[in-house]
């Protein structure tokens, strides 16, 4: 009983430390987003380039970092919280994007608002997919695939995404590195 309580306390402490890692990453991501918004200061109600740039770049970075951390690196306790949930989550923003779109809509620029959301969505999805693909196929040697079921982690980012290891990911990647394919079931 005392041991169970100690274990629960340990989990709480670890969760607290993860939350600190998220906060630290979030602070740095926010500062980076602010720097980009200052550097690319927009012109009134034109196309909101700063938000677009951070959202697409952050989507690429999140897809890349999550895939590397979940599928390639040895299990880490805080890197996912720091880099993915914290930094990438804090660097990109959803609320600013939709408020910018709504403002343009209110000022008779509904076409621009729709274009902005559509382009952000398409570019963001492509960037996320490119980040994932980059981590899997191009950047790193193919290692053991694994998933980390971790109910205590913050956010599901990466938790439910590890694909079935019995399914070959892509013929190309497997063909590039003979001998490293997963054994057929």
């Amino acid at each position, binding site marked *: 009983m005392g041991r169970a309580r100690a274990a629960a306390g340990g989990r709480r402490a670890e969760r607290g430390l*993860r*939350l600190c890692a*998220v*906060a*630290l*990453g*979030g*602070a*740095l*991501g*926010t*500062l980076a*987003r*602010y720097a980009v*918004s200052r550097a690319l200061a927009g012109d009134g109600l034109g196309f909101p380039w700063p938000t677009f740039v951070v*959202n697409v770049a*952050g*989507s690429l*970075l*999140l*897809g890349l970092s*999550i895939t590397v951390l979940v599928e390639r690196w040895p299990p880490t306790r805080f890197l996912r*919280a720091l880099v993915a*949930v*914290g930094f*990438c*989550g*804090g*660097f*990109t*923003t*959803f*609320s*600013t*994007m*939709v*408020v910018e*779109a*709504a*403002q343009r*809509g*209110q000022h008779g620029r509904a076409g621009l*608002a729709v274009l902005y*959301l559509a382009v*952000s*969505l398409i570019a*963001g*999805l492509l*960037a*996320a*997919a490119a980040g*994932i693909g980059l981590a899997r196929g191009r950047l790193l040697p193919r290692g053991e695939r694994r998933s980390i079921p971790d*109910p205590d982690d*913050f*956010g*599901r*980012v990466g938790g*439910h*995404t590890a*694909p079935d290891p019995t399914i070959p990911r892509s013929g190309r990647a497997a063909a590039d590195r003979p001998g490293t394919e997963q054994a057929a079931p």
Partner: protein
Amino acid sequence: MIIGGLLIAGALGAALRAGVDMVIQRRMGSDFPLGILVVNLSGSLVLGVLVGSAAHNGLSPFWLTIAGTGLLGAYTTFSTFTFDVVSLMENGEWGASAMNTLLSLGAGLGAAAAGLALGSLM
């Protein structure tokens, strides 16, 4: 001054997102990313109110930057949204992927517009 404020607000916003997401997602029996959806919609509504009220009176540019760019900018996230949509597609959950996309953008835009209108009344 503004840098320090942004660091604190960004840290709080990101931690709040992680907490809300964890609490909601634990109660969900599925992969559908309801936690981030709730975070993004609530953050969009509140940012709309802040921006709407700042345009008329109230909030100074300094506090709008701290609360809007810092707190709500970090609380809401675009990258987790796009990642979730892509991983749902990867897992063959096309319906959930499409629903998450439509709900996020449609309701997010609605929440922002409602917030702007609400804020301008304040």
